[in-house]
């Protein structure tokens, strides 16, 4: 399911201090591997991890975000963020089509890539004894929206660079 939110949201509300709960680094590494694997195989470009940081506030986004819920050993969500140009470039390579604007196909393509990344990470985690279920992807597209971390849930942002443009992955998980 996808939705478009062109309206500028209100300013980021004040947040509580960063959550102290630890996030298992294994989880993050498997999601990073899943992003690299999915993009290098299905899009034909390998993104390079540039920065890993804790997310404590809602960041302003610009483009398309694929969001998928996780449940099981740990519960939370994964968000794949691409700006509009990156989304058009990435989905163009994914489908073999050219997109001049942010069409419904581009939005659906980001949702499908998010789904494949989450599924790939789930498979990698299973081989190490971690059990997760993934939900159905949702996609938000528009300008100046923010994705807020859930209070008390550790959230890590991984920024990637690629020839198709920058992208980021947010992994927010707490013990289930």
């Amino acid at each position: 399911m996808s939705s478009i939110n062109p309206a500028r949201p209100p300013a980021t509300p004040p947040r509580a201090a960063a959550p102290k709960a630890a996030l298992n680094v294994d989880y993050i590494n498997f999601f990073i591997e899943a992003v690299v694997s999915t993009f290098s195989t299905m899009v034909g470009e390998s993104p390079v991890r540039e920065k890993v940081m804790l997310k404590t506030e809602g960041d302003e986004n610009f483009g398309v975000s694929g969001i998928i819920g996780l449940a099981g050993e740990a519960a939370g969500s994964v968000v794949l963020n691409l700006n509009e140009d990156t989304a058009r470039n990435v989905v163009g390579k994914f489908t073999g089509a050219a997109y001049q604007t942010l069409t419904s196909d581009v939005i659906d393509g980001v949702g499908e890539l998010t789904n494949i990344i989450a599924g790939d990470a789930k498979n990698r985690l299973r081989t190490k004894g971690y059990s997760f279920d993934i939900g159905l992807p949702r996609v938000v597209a528009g300008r100046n929206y923010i994705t807020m971390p859930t209070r008390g849930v550790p959230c890590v942002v991984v920024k990637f660079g690629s020839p198709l443009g920058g992208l980021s992955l947010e992994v927010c998980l707490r013990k289930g």
Partner: protein
Amino acid sequence: MPKTVLVVDDSAMMRKVVIHNLTAAGLVVNILESPNGQDALEKFKGGGIDVVLSDWNMPIMDGITLVREIRKCDPAKLATIIMITTEDSPDKVKEAVLAGANHYLVKPFTPERFKEKLSKVLA
């Protein structure tokens, strides 16, 4: 005469990606599409389908049920069924093979891996 391939996935985008991979691999085929197992089964019963490429998780009728239903009307396994899914656990692969699937392709896949699986079947 080109073979007929039925691409089954509830995601229109994923059907588009599979069709793009068929075309990019230079495989000359007739292509049909279905958004779920029930629709795919009706198309299959209509005849003329050589290869079914099916997702696992779909509404109305999932991929594993589709495989079982196809094999009920194709016990000689004349049609080739390839599951294309993110489900890669050994239990799932075994379940699909026991149900009658011929091949199993896990997403994400490279164009080379896709072509390798399909070119043998479509030769």
